[in-house]
């Protein structure tokens, strides 16, 4: 996947780390110390539609441009910048009875983005 470097307007993964101490949740969340709430942002012009989020070869881009130009007039929704790889978030926390709870929340951290 491509990480946003600030200048790109194309579909990429924006990293965003939430420090539990900063939001005052470190007293009830034992582990981890924070949560990488990464998200996908940026544009998906037609010639990169369907790209799995990797740097496409020049040939593929040209081929897709041709496809896009021929179908440019076709109706149909655009392509969106969406997560293409995600992993679980393991949490260890206190519940309101001060029990210790451990759980793995599936698909909680975005690892890569790509165009639908």
């Amino acid at each position, binding site marked *: 996947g491509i990480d946003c470097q600030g200048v790109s307007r194309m579909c990429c993964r*924006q990293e965003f780390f939430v420090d539990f101490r900063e*939001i005052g949740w470190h007293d009830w969340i034992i582990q981890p110390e924070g*949560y990488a709430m990464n998200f996908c942002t940026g544009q998906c012009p037609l010639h990169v539609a369907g790209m799995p989020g990797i740097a496409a070869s020049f040939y593929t881009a040209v081929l897709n441009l041709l496809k896009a130009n021929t179908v440019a007039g076709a109706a149909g929704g655009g392509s969106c910048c969406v997560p293409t790889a995600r992993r679980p978030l*393991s949490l260890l926390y206190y519940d*309101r009875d*001060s029990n210790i709870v451990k*759980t793995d929340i599936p698909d909680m951290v975005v690892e890569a983005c790509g165009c639908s």
Partner: protein
Amino acid sequence: TCRAGGQCPACGGPTLDLESQRELLLDMAKRSILDKLHLSQRPTLSQPVSRAALRTALQCLHGPPQGAFPEANRAQDYEIISFADTGLSTINQTRLDFHFSSDRTTGVIEVQQASLMFFVQLLPNATGTLNVKVLVSDPHNTNLTLATQHLLEVDASGWYQLFLGPDAQDACSQGHLTLELVPEGQAAQGSVILVGAAHRPFVTAQVRVGDKHRVHRR
């Protein structure tokens, strides 16, 4: 990556200034975590747990549940460690009360497996039997009745683990479990169930939160 004052490349809408954007993202992160934990709000801790008890208990936690979550029934697996409140204990018996939060906004908790961990201090060369009684309260009155009992041989000071059966699991699912530990035979004279900070008895439970009903999303 929306620049303040520009146009957002993703949605084309007006962009937020970076501080507002950060506030929005932090709020989304909080709601996302609480939603996935089936909590309506962050817990406020009723009684802090000592670091010694926390350390002892975490050594009992197993690794992450193996395998992917069964998407079919959309359940989520939890491991819960509940520390005992030592209520009406006497010289002859130790009563332990455990509370399991029912603060989950959606879903009923199903206890898949539960075990009791407790520390016994024995006089040198003393051995004996410990009778662990599972008491359940009748929904119509507060009296506790004996559901099952387990006899455990104790022959040295240390931590003991006892796997609890379906009656205890049901009591945990209902939110409240009461156990009574009664030393018998030689153990009755020379044994003590420790309940201090580092030796606080606790129950570990493997819990699944099933969807009580599918939450209709707008």
